[in-house]
C-alpha cells in the first residue's frame, strides 16, 4: 500500500495537458468457494492494481493481492490462512514505436495465461490450467529486465515480442528464479486469429528448457472465443483448450439471457518422470471443466463451475462458486 501511495503522489506532479493521464486504481474483489475432492474452502480475495503514468513515455504499475482461506478444522470451527503480497511492480519506458523497456518485477512472459488471463476479474474459471506452471519459473514473476513491443504492424497482421532476463531473488515480496526467455506471436486482426510460441530457460541449479505454443481464435461474427495452449517441460507436458460463448445473440449482451456465459475447458497432462518443481500433477491427468458465469450490471460477475479430474492417483470432482466485482476509478478527480 505504501508503494501504491508513493507512486500516486509522484504521478500527481506528472499530469498531461489534456488531463487524461491521471493514475488509476483498478482490480477485483471477490468471495470464492472451492470444494475439491470433498474438501471445502472459502476464499475472500482483494487484488488491487495501480497504474501511474510519468510524463509521456513512462508507466509505473503494480498489482497485489490479499487472500484469506477459511476451511473447516474438523472440530467446531474454521482454520484460517492469510496471504498477501505483490504480484508485480514494474516500470515501463516506451522507448520507441517498436520498443518498450520494462524493469522491476514483472509477470513472466510465457504463453498467454500468466500475463493475460490470470487476474481475478478476467479469468473465466477460478482454477488456472494444469500446465500454467510450465515456463513461468516458479513464482510466475521475474525480477530483472524485459524488452517488448510491436515489431511490425499493419491492417492485416501485428507481430509482437517479449524477451526477458531475470535474476535469482529470494526476497519474499520479489521472489524469482534466475532465468531468461521470451514469446513471439502473430495476430491477424481481420481473422481474429493469434498464433505464438514461447521459450524459457532456467539458469540456476539444474538448468531446464521450457517451450510452448498458443493459438487463439475469436471469430468476429460470433461471441465465441477459442483459446488453447500447449507447453513442454523436461519431465512433463500438456495442453488446454477453452471455449467460452456469451449468449449475446439472445436479445443482446445486456438482456437476461445475453448476460450468461457458458465456459468449457478440456485439459490433459503427461508425466514422463517425477519432477515436483514443474507444478504439474504427479501422474497423467485429464480434466474437463464446465463453467457458467453471469455478468450482472456494474461490473459484477457471478461464477460457478464443475470440474471432473481423472488420474491414476484418484478421480475427483471440483465445485466452485464465486462473486467478483471489478473496480476502476481515478486516484483523484483531476482537472
Amino acid at each position: 500500500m505504501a508503494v501504491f501511495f508513493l507512486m500516486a503522489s509522484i504521478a500527481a506532479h506528472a499530469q498531461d495537458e489534456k488531463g487524461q493521464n491521471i493514475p488509476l486504481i483498478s482490480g477485483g474483489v471477490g468471495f470464492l468457494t472451492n470444494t475439491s475432492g470433498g474438501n471445502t474452502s472459502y476464499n475472500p480475495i482483494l487484488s488491487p492494481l495501480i497504474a501511474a503514468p510519468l510524463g509521456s513515455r513512462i508507466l509505473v504499475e503494480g498489482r497485489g493481492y490479499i487472500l484469506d482461506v477459511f476451511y473447516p478444522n474438523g472440530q467446531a470451527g474454521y482454520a484460517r490462512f492469510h496471504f498477501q503480497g505483490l504480484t508485480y511492480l514494474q516500470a515501463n519506458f516506451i522507448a520507441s514505436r517498436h520498443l518498450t523497456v520494462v524493469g522491476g518485477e514483472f509477470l513472466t512472459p510465457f504463453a498467454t495465461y500468466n500475463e493475460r488471463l490470470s487476474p481475478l476479474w478476467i479469468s473465466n474459471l477460478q482454477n488456472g490450467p494444469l500446465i500454467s506452471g510450465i515456463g513461468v519459473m516458479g513464482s510466475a514473476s521475474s525480477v530483472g529486465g524485459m524488452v517488448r513491443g510491436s515489431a511490425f504492424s499493419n491492417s492485416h497482421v501485428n507481430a509482437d515480442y517479449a524477451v526477458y532476463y531475470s535474476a535469482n531473488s529470494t526476497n519474499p515480496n520479489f521472489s524469482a528464479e534466475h532465468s531468461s526467455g521470451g514469446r513471439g506471436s502473430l495476430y491477424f486482426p481481420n481473422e481474429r486469429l493469434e498464433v505464438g510460441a514461447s521459450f524459457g530457460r532456467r539458469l540456476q541449479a539444474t538448468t531446464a528448457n521450457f517451450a510452448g505454443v498458443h493459438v487463439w481464435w475469436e471469430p468476429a461474427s460470433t461471441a465465441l472465443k477459442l483459446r488453447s495452449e500447449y507447453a513442454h517441460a523436461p519431465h512433463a507436458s500438456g495442453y488446454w483448450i477453452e471455449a467460452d460463448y456469451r449468449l449475446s445473440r439472445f436479445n443482446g449482451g445486456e438482456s437476461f439471457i445475453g448476460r450468461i456465459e457458458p465456459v468449457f475447458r478440456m485439459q490433459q497432462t503427461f508425466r514422463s518422470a517425477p519432477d515436483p518443481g514443474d507444478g504439474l500433477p504427479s501422474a497423467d491427468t485429464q480434466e474437463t471443466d464446465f463453467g457458467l458465469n453471469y455478468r450482472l450490471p456494474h461490473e459484477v460477475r457471478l461464477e460457478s463451475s464443475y470440474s471432473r479430474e481423472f488420474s491414476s492417483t484418484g478421480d475427483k470432482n471440483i465445485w466452485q462458486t464465486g462473486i467478483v466485482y471489478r473496480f476502476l476509478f481515478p486516484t483523484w478527480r483531476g482537472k
Partner: protein
Amino acid sequence: MKRSSILISCLAGAFAILPLIAQPTAPKGNSQVPPAQSKHAPPPAYSSDGERVFKQNCSRCHEAPQSFPPQISGTVVRHMRVRASLSEQDEKLILKFLNP
C-alpha cells in the same frame, strides 16, 4: 467413471453446438460484444478505425469496462499498449475513440 464420461461428453457436445443454434439478433444497450451476424454477412461495421482496433484488441482477453472516467483514458490505453503490445498507431486510434 463410465457414466461420468458419458455425461461429460454430452455436455461438451451441447456446448459445442450452442453457437450454431443461437439465432442472430442485434444486441441492445451498450454491449461490448460485436454485433451478431448471419453466416454470410459482411464483417462488422465499425464507426471508426478506433472502434475497430478497440474491439479487435481489448476484447480479446477481457470484457471492456462498462464505463470509466475520461481523465484516466490515457492511462488505460498506455497500460494496454504495454500489456497487449499495441502498436503506436493503434494506441492513438483507441485514445481518439475513447475521447472523440
